[in-house]
């Protein structure tokens, strides 16, 4: 193994009695509990086994994810409510040796190997898997469109993300972050890393923000920070958040796509006027979450910017020939360098043995503008995907889904507020909408279908997306 895992995130220095996490089911775990679970896994499981850990947002989920990593085994972290089709595809592709799931949520006739903190671990009978020594954990790339492609993380990514993020947020052991983002989502998981790095207590919940229990949990547990995607802030705004008395809550952070300007300003001004910090961030799973942050003192003057590189990281722009652009202002593809850059992707079980394919350098696929002061603004994407309500919607994957249901031609495009589908037959409109809403789980009113005579194509028969209006 590349390093002594016990010192990951300095967890060996934590007081075993210190509370690591509290959930809205009323359960509490300590740092000692997590270490205890890791010891138990070391005793009962052959090292370097591949786990699927199906999680709820509860203390058991946190304990199992972190303990699996600490014990030298490799978890793929998934939602317990992963669609059956996707879960089957993942099981078939990666053949995990162990599956861990919350009690009563996963059928197995086998006897659990370990049963703790509301989760049970089952042996599947699959043969051992050859995995690279540095491989720490795996995350899915897409929550919505069902691709079995995974992001391969290494141990040093965890320490780097923990250190970088806790540094710029100035986190300490008295922090109590409210975690609504899922554990299997890179930004959610990075909240655990960065707060465990400083010995804080994570408040984790499965409750929807439209549920009264959510607000009770937030107030009773005296959360000190909240991290959300733009949609989370739309909900907070709707709930007349600014009128609530929440003196303990002093840090609001946002990631997962660009906020609408009006909403951004509303929260930035609210925070400025109420002695709270408003911090926009930028990240991707491929960079173990955060790669850029906008310091709170620039929240209004540089509104809309993703800010500057996180501590220990570096942002650069490169032109279409791949040359680094030194001058500012300038526009180009944004690239990130740092220890939190992941090793690469896995598309099958054999790929888990692969080493680091990126060596700390990640072209983000985002086109950014860097202003004269060195602040970055995301202008567009090179890849074909949208981010609607914080969900990454792959347009090519949407087309694949449509093609399996339709007999006419289709093309998907859109903006971060609308998924736009072009069809060549009016009679298939209803089928198109229903197959998409079931696959990507978006409300029907953000999907718009337009019928045209034929799709614009080049001589080679490729669809010319630039000729299709995207709004």
């Amino acid at each position, binding site marked *: 193994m590349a390093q002594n895992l016990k010192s990951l995130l300095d967890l060996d220095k934590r007081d075993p009695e210190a509370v690591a996490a509290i959930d809205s089911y009323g359960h509490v775990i300590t740092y000692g509990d997590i270490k205890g679970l890791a010891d138990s896994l070391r005793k009962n499981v052959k090292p370097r086994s591949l786990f699927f850990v199906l999680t709820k947002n509860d203390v058991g989920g946190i304990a199992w994810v972190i303990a699996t990593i600490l014990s030298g085994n490799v978890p793929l972290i998934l939602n317990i409510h992963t669609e059956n089709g996707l879960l089957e595809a993942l099981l078939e592709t990666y053949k995990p040796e162990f599956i861990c799931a919350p009690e009563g949520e996963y059928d197995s006739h086998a006897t659990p190997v370990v049963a703790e903190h509301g989760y049970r671990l089952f042996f599947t009978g699959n043969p051992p898997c050859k995995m690279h020594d540095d491989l720490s954990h795996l995350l899915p790339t897409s929550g919505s469109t069902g691709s079995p492609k995974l992001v391969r993380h290494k141990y040093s990514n965890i320490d780097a993300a923990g250190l970088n993020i806790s540094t710029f947020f100035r986190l300490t052991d008295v922090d109590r972050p409210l975690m609504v983002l899922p554990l299997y989502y890179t930004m959610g998981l990075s909240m655990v890393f960065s707060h465990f790095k400083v010995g804080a207590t994570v408040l984790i919940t499965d409750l*929807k*923000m*439209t*549920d*009264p229990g959510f607000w009770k949990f937030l107030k009773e547990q005296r959360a000190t920070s909240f991290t959300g995607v733009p*949609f989370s802030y*739309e*909900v907070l705004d*709707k*709930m*007349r958040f600014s009128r609530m008395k929440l003196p303990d809550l002093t840090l609001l952070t946002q990631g997962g796509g660009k906020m609408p300007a009006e909403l951004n300003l509303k929260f930035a001004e609210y925070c400025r006027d109420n002695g709270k910090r408003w911090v926009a961030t930028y990240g991707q799973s491929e960079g173990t979450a955060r790669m850029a942050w906008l310091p709170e003192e620039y929240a209004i003057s540089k509104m809309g910017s993703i800010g500057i590189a996180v501590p220990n990281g570096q942002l650069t722009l490169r032109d279409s020939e791949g040359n680094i652009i030194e001058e500012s202002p300038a526009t180009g593809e944004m690239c990130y360098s740092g220890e939190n850059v992941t090793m690469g992707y896995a598309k099958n079980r054999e790929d888990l043995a692969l080493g680091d394919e990126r060596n700390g350098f990640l072209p983000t696929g985002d086109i950014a503008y860097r202003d004269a002061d060195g602040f970055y603004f995301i202008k567009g994407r090179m890849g074909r995907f949208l981010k609607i*309500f914080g969900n990454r919607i792959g347009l090519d994957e949407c087309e694949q889904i449509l093609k399996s249901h339709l007999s006419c031609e289709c093309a998907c495009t859109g903006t971060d507020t609308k998924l736009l589908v072009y069809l060549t037959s009016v009679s298939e409109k209803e089928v198109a*909408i*229903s197959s998409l*809403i*079931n696959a990507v*789980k*978006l*409300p*029907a*009113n*953000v*999907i718009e279908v337009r019928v045209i005579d034929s799709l614009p194509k080049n001589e080679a028969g490729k669809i010319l997306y630039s000729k299709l209006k995207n709004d």
Partner: protein
Amino acid sequence: MSNIEKYNNIFVEVFGVEPSVLNDNFSKDTVDLWDSVHQLNLVSLAEETFDIMLDPEDIMGFTSYGKGKEIVRNQDIEL
């Protein structure tokens, strides 16, 4: 369009369903797709459609076709 047609239309737009499937059993617990994104979209469309402003309690309470109806009626909209 009558108010009840307008109200039904909100659900048609958000869930992509036929008005005929709408009844008091159409709720957060019976509709798989119904999550907070859908709920907030329902509330926003209801506010827009009827030119009303709902309270946080109403937003949290908008958990079924029937409950939504009551919430809208409480804003002096006849349904």
